[in-house]
């Protein structure tokens, strides 16, 4: 059953997106209905597939498409890591769909639906594909959807969208070159088959480096991050949530899968590249945190926070390098962090969207009194901030704990320092936001407390639900980590 449904996770939303594109734009309600139905069915199919992965022997569900095994055909394979990502995507996807269905301003109008459904399909594909070129095509689909969605923002969103497009396409091209190199040596595009057919040498080193840089650009890894803080404020609220929670993760997943499959064969060169990734990640943690502290607009703060969190995720590569227990801890910690960050960031951006809609601005000065008028939305911001900072009792804590364990286990203290510094900075900018929204209206100035506009209750409840999910899932974190660790890589030793 789950094997039958695995391709449907990609093709279903894709077809629904195509159908939504045919519905005239004036019939926004019909488009929303298509979107919500698809979200419900997708969630159901995801549950079946995740259940299938949990019960299947070896915790994996595998489908050879068109009946052709590699090297001729393409294989889709869902393992525990895919399952974790599918859970995240379902939660965020349903939340975003509900938000936009209630008030389509949040997504930039009815044009949101076809693009979002197509993007959703592509994300599912990225999590389960085993084929390098297929991953490239899926990333292209992700890029087309994400860039168009950013361009739906009000005002001057075309420039930031174009900038994002250029960066993303250059990243794709570098990855394509890497694929060509791997194919030239291995003679196959299947990741696991290629792993056994490559040897250390300039070819493999170049492929790993190109993938690191290409995917680094797509996931906004410092110093290639400059498109992200520009794109977020321009994009509609729901699109920002998708962009930060899911889209940058697609590139990250491709990087990790590529790395896990091919880096062990590269020997010392992979070590050097992993350290480079760690250095970039540490710089991202510090730079993103400092920049977030300096911003005065809520969306920009949350955007720079993404730069920080992507930095953590880049640390996973060097932490995995020693293999053994450390690699298991780093891998499961990294995946948990992806889930935790996705939930927290989606909650934050959706909350920011609600506040922006209510107060007509996301400048911190204009949000005074929000604590009193929109307590649940502010609570969502707070809980999400706590999870981001990695404090108990949240999923973020469980994830960072694993990463710390990996660092201590392998004696890589310097990465631990970056992790801790990042946590402090996160506490800092979360405090800045909370302080601003809790400030009484008459603090300093005589201006009256800005009257908030009405926002549908459902829309205000969604961010809180996501933030609460980050807390609830922390109870399951132990089991989840154990399950995920089974798919852990062997390290670079």
């Amino acid at each position: 059953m789950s094997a039958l449904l695995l391709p449907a996770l990609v093709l279903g939303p894709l077809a629904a997106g195509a159908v939504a594109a045919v519905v005239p734009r004036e019939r926004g309600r019909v488009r929303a209905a298509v979107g919500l139905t698809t979200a419900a069915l997708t969630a159901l199919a995801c549950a079946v597939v995740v259940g299938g992965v949990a019960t299947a022997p070896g915790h994996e569900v595998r489908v050879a498409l068109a009946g052709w095994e590699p090297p001729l055909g393409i294989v889709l394979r869902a393992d525990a890591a895919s399952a974790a990502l599918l859970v995240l995507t379902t939660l965020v996807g349903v939340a975003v769909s509900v938000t936009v269905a209630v008030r389509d301003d949040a997504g930039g109008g009815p044009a949101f639906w076809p693009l979002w459904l197509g993007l959703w399909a592509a994300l599912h594909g990225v999590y389960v594909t085993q084929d390098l070129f297929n991953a490239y095509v899926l990333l292209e689909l992700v890029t087309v959807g994400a860039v168009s969605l950013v361009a739906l923002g009000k005002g001057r969103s075309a420039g930031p969208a174009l900038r994002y497009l250029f960066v993303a396409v250059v990243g794709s091209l570098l990855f394509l070159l890497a694929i060509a190199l791997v194919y030239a040596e291995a003679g196959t595009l299947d990741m696991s088959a290629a792993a056994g057919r490559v040897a250390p040498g300039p070819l493999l080193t170049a492929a790993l480096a190109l993938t690191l840089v290409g995917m680094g650009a797509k996931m906004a890894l410092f110093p290639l991050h400059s498109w992200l803080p520009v794109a977020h404020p321009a994009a509609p609220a729901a699109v920002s949530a998708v962009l930060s929670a899911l889209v940058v993760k697609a590139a990250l997943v491709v990087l990790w899968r590529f790395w896990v499959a091919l880096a062990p064969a590269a020997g010392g060169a992979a070590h050097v590249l992993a350290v480079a990734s760690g250095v970039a990640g540490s710089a991202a943690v510090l730079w993103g945190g400092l920049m977030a502290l300096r911003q005065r607009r809520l969306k920009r703060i949350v955007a720079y926070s993404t730069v920080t969190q992507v930095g953590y995720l880049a640390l996973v590569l060097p932490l995995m390098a020693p293999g053994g227990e450390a690699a298991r801890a780093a891998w499961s910690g990294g995946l948990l962090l992806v889930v935790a960050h996705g939930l927290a960031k989606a909650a934050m951006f959706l909350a920011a969207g609600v506040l922006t809609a209510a107060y007509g601005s996301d400048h911190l000065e204009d949000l005074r009194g929000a604590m009193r008028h929109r307590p649940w939305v502010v609570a969502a911001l707070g809980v999400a901030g706590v999870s981001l900072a990695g404090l108990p009792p949240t999923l973020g804590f469980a994830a960072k704990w694993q990463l710390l364990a990996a660092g201590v286990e392998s004696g890589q203290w310097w990465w631990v320092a970056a992790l801790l510094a990042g946590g402090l900075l996160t506490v800092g900018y979360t405090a800045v936001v909370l302080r601003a929204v809790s400030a009484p209206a008459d603090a300093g100035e005589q201006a009256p407390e800005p009257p908030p506009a009405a926002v549908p209750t459902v829309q205000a409840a969604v961010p809180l639900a996501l933030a609460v999910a980050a807390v609830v899932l922390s109870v399951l974190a132990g089991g989840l980590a154990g399950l995920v660790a089974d798919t852990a890589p062997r390290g670079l030793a």
Partner: protein
Amino acid sequence: MSPASVLDVVLAAAVLAVALVAVLLPSRRGAVSAFLVLGVVLAVLWARLDAPDIALAEAALGSGVAGALLMDTLTADPARPGRRAGRTAVVVGLLAGAVALAALTVVVRAVPDEPSLLPAAVAEEIHGAGADHAVTAVLLNFRSLDTLLEAAVLVFAAAGAGALVRTPVRAPDPVPAPVTALARVLLPALVLLGTWLLLAGTSRPGGAFQAGAMFAGALVVAFVAGARFAASQGTAARAWTVAGVLAFVALAAGTAMLGQGWLVLDPRWAGAAVLTVETVLAVSIGVGLAQVFVANSEARRVPS
């Protein structure tokens, strides 16, 4: 030096020269024109590299449809001063390019001589794949998911482009007589050429993407000549754009429900299935590309 290697050396030098001119020219129009020339030279390069499929695609998409799109964007835009790259930027760029070239040379020289597994595997399995031409068999059968997703990329690109045009398509400007006359001849010729490429695709280079480019060319000519039907933003146009993807997904779902597995084509009807999907795809690609062109053309006319 043999005549063949003279040709190859000149060709390689030509590609480099045209690419450099396209990148370094400060005038935007000049750069775009050079880019169109690059399309021609690249088509010749692919022909020389014994890759007629790509030569055909480059001629159709690289210099044809993309050329029309780029030139249309530029010519309706007021001539603005091009930005001249600073001397430092040029020097740094050339240095970086040289380093990248050297690194790539090292890497490419490390490519092993042993042939890839795939050509043999394709040759072995192509009977019953539904197409005699290896490229078509790979695109429509062995790796059909990739092709489906590529078609989806175009669908969502067209949807995205359409979403950015916030006004309905305007009535056409008066069309000069020679354009109308030319359209009458060019339109059927392009449709005929596209149909030929589509049918040829099962046994030799050709197929849905190249044929789609021809259909797009025909629709663009119709649009320029004042026709406001399929190429506009109507529901019918959008339906045609997504038809290819939907047909492909329907085929996939059908095969899955019949118990054969997703996208598994029975050799008995694989040929018919491949040709049907290719035909719908070609029309979809044509209408989709034309929609991008129209959206681009209309977006510029909106006074902002």
